[in-house]
């Protein structure tokens, strides 16, 4: 005998497709639903893999983006996109200290910023024991140059440019010789860093720095892609894939030398 499971007259609270199973009463709020979904996946994990941990692909390479203005002692107005010193520095320490992280990739697209904060970031990267690779994308201007060269190996994409120009207080007249000396000294600190961390020589760097007729509002040079490599400022022209391959090579090489020491 047939059971009367006509969907039209199915009693309220039952699923007409499957009358023996009650339908969920009300729609679960979004947040709760997300939580239950998470719980479900954990149950699934226990059933399928015997673990409560959700398997995630762990990357041995961490990425740091340096974008916009590099912010140091002063908080810039909110319309500026900034990379903050206080975010970057502890992250660098964490990367250096975490045994699971083996390499660092730096993505640069910066218009410059605070000289001392920029130099601090550059020195931190340069003094790390783990290999690092930088890619200049779009632009790595002014203080971006020392940060780009601070990595173990640097890349620049063909379309990216780096503006190399002297440090100055824009729109201000240097009245006292001491303020000129102050800027001169600051410039020297940058020059020294760039020269020691890249294959450009001091003469060439200064020539780029004080060139006239290249920039419309300033003296200096706008170095594009291949030229940066030609001057010895950057190691190679290339993008993400080149950089990742190089970084894995550096990681491998470092592991081998470490193995020899032990």
């Amino acid at each position, binding site marked *: 005998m047939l059971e009367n499971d006509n969907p039209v007259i199915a009693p309220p609270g039952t699923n007409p497709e499957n009358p023996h199973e009650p339908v969920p009463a009300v729609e679960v709020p979004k947040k709760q639903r997300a939580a239950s979904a998470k719980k479900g996946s954990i149950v699934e994990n226990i059933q399928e893999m015997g673990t409560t941990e959700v398997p995630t692909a762990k990357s041995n390479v961490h990425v740091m983006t340096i974008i916009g203005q590099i912010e140091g002692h002063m908080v810039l107005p909110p319309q500026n996109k900034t990379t903050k010193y206080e975010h970057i520095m502890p992250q660098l320490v964490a990367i250096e200290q975490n045994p699971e992280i083996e390499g660092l990739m730096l993505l640069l697209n910066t218009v410059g910023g605070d000289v001392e904060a920029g130099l601090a970031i550059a020195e931190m990267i340069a003094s790390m024991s783990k290999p690092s690779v930088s890619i200049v994308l779009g632009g790595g201007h002014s203080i971006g140059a020392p940060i780009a060269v601070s990595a173990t190996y640097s890349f620049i994409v063909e379309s990216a440019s780096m503006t190399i120009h002297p*440090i100055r207080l824009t729109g201000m007249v240097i009245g006292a010789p001491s303020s000129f000396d102050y800027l001169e000294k600051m410039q020297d600190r940058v020059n020294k860093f760039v020269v020691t961390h890249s294959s450009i020589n001091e003469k060439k760097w200064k020539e780029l720095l004080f060139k006239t007729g290249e920039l419309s509002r300033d003296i200096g040079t706008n170095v594009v892609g291949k030229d940066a490599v030609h001057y010895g400022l950057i190691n190679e022209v290339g993008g993400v894939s080149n950089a990742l391959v190089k970084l894995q090579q550096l990681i491998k090489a470092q592991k081998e030398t470490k193995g020899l020491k032990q």
Partner: protein
Amino acid sequence: MVLWTIMPSELIFQEQNTMEQSPVYEEVDLEGKKVIVERCSPNQSKIVRIISTCPEDYMLEELQPGTMLTYKPTYEKSIT
């Protein structure tokens, strides 16, 4: 502080138009992941940026920029 940049200082330090309010950004910790949020209303914020060096964090659906977060104040029982 010395800024060494290609951006003209008048662009960096331009006066904000008093008619339109400048966005309020806050740093928030979401289960150990740091994000920057923009305040939209007293109890709602929008994720604008993730502060992390781990590339996987940028793939997490719940941290995608544009996600709205609701802030709910709660009372806590005082422990005696």
